[in-house]
């Protein structure tokens, strides 16, 4: 039901054991050279260059390759050649499982087909974002996964409305938020009306009625929905080579005047039409 990577899928289905998967991952780690290792192996840089760049990384928030170019150790063309070589020689987990004898090639092809079918529900649909938004592929995926989880986890019929940039976050009954860090600097928020909060709670708790539930439990269910979406966004992002770390979710009760967007951030609002009298919005605060 969630976004998965191939090795996890195979263990979950009992096709390979945990120990065999770890053996294949160990093999991958031995065979797949990191960027610095590949650059040394190709004779483009020395080990001393790499160490110098690693030291510089302590004070600069840059990827190693970009830093090597900035420091004049590599040209951009050399960096591209190294990345291409890394991609062309990459040993995938399926291939590693064949090499350790856990799967035959024919089994690998069959399981890959089954895995793709299992994950097809999480292939991103087209989401339109305003122009000039950094990391737009990630935010498109985030909105898309949010819509898919609303359908699959909450079971709600809805109509997504067009994304727009806002300067104030509208007041609503409550918001649940999660900070995203790593290769992005952003905050994910879900804003719900009172009725929607109960709908979320019923779905998460798998209960017919939540009328007697305490406020903290109702709020927790919205935070948990945010946690599920953001965890799956992190999984999808990792498949795209982007690292996203998630932090424990928090609850916000916005004042009636709404909330201002923090300086230095762009607020993308995705209104989600769920019926008369109820309000549901996805908001992404992304560092400019």
């Amino acid at each position: 039901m969630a976004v998965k990577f191939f090795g996890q899928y195979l263990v979950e289905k009992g096709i390979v054991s945990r120990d065999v998967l770890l053996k294949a991952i160990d093999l991958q780690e031995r065979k797949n050279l990191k960027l610095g290792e590949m650059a040394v192996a190709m004779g483009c840089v020395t080990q001393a260059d790499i160490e110098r760049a690693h030291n510089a990384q302590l004070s600069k928030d840059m990827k190693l390759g970009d830093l090597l170019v900035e420091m004049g150790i590599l040209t951009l063309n050399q960096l591209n050649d190294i990345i291409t070589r890394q991609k062309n020689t990459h040993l995938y987990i399926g291939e590693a499982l064949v090499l350790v004898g856990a799967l035959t090639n024919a089994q690998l092809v069959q399981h890959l087909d089954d895995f793709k079918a299992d994950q097809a529900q999480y292939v991103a649909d087209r989401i339109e974002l305003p122009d000039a938004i950094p990391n737009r592929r990630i935010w498109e995926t985030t909105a898309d996964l949010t819509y898919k989880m609303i359908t699959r986890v909450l079971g709600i019929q809805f109509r997504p409305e067009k994304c727009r940039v806002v300067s104030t976050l509208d007041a609503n009954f409550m918001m649940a938020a999660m900070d995203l860090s790593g290769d992005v600097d952003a905050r994910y928020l879900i804003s719900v009306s009172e009725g929607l909060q109960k709908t979320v709670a019923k779905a998460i708790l798998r209960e017919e009625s939540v009328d007697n539930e305490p406020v903290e439990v109702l709020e927790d269910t919205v935070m948990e929905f945010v946690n599920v979406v953001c965890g799956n966004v992190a999984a999808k992002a990792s498949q795209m080579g982007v690292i996203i770390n998630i932090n424990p979710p928090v609850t916000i009760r916005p004042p009636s005047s709404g909330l201002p967007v923090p300086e230095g951030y762009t607020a993308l609002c995705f209104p989600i039409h769920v019926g008369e009298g109820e309000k549901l919005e996805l908001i992404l605060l992304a560092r400019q």
Partner: protein
Amino acid sequence: MGVRSTACTGRNIRMKKVLVVDDSLSVARQLEKIISESGEFVCVGHAKNGAEAIKMNHTENPDIICMDMNMPGMDGLTALRSLVVLDKDVKVVMVTSLGGVGDKFTEALRLGARNVISKPFESIDVLNILREL
């Protein structure tokens, strides 16, 4: 550490004891419901972070621990490191929305987790994984 219970068939069924570790009240409720309705497992408690999990592993002596990764205070992977050192027989299953992040999944298995359940989960997936332990 006392002797753990074992599941068996017949009249004197001793259900396997499960400790749930999650800062989320709603996830704990979900898991407790799945566990208690199964008739095969019994939930012996709910710890809200890794430090509580370590204490409750000692006091409740569960057969299985279902533990979140992303918790305030001591997180799940830090607690897992300690649990496997303190109790070599401990069986921990991580329950997380980050299960699909390859590095996190691999780290959990390397640290000694028996399996990883991704959120959102279905009851049957949780029970199938618990039954294998």
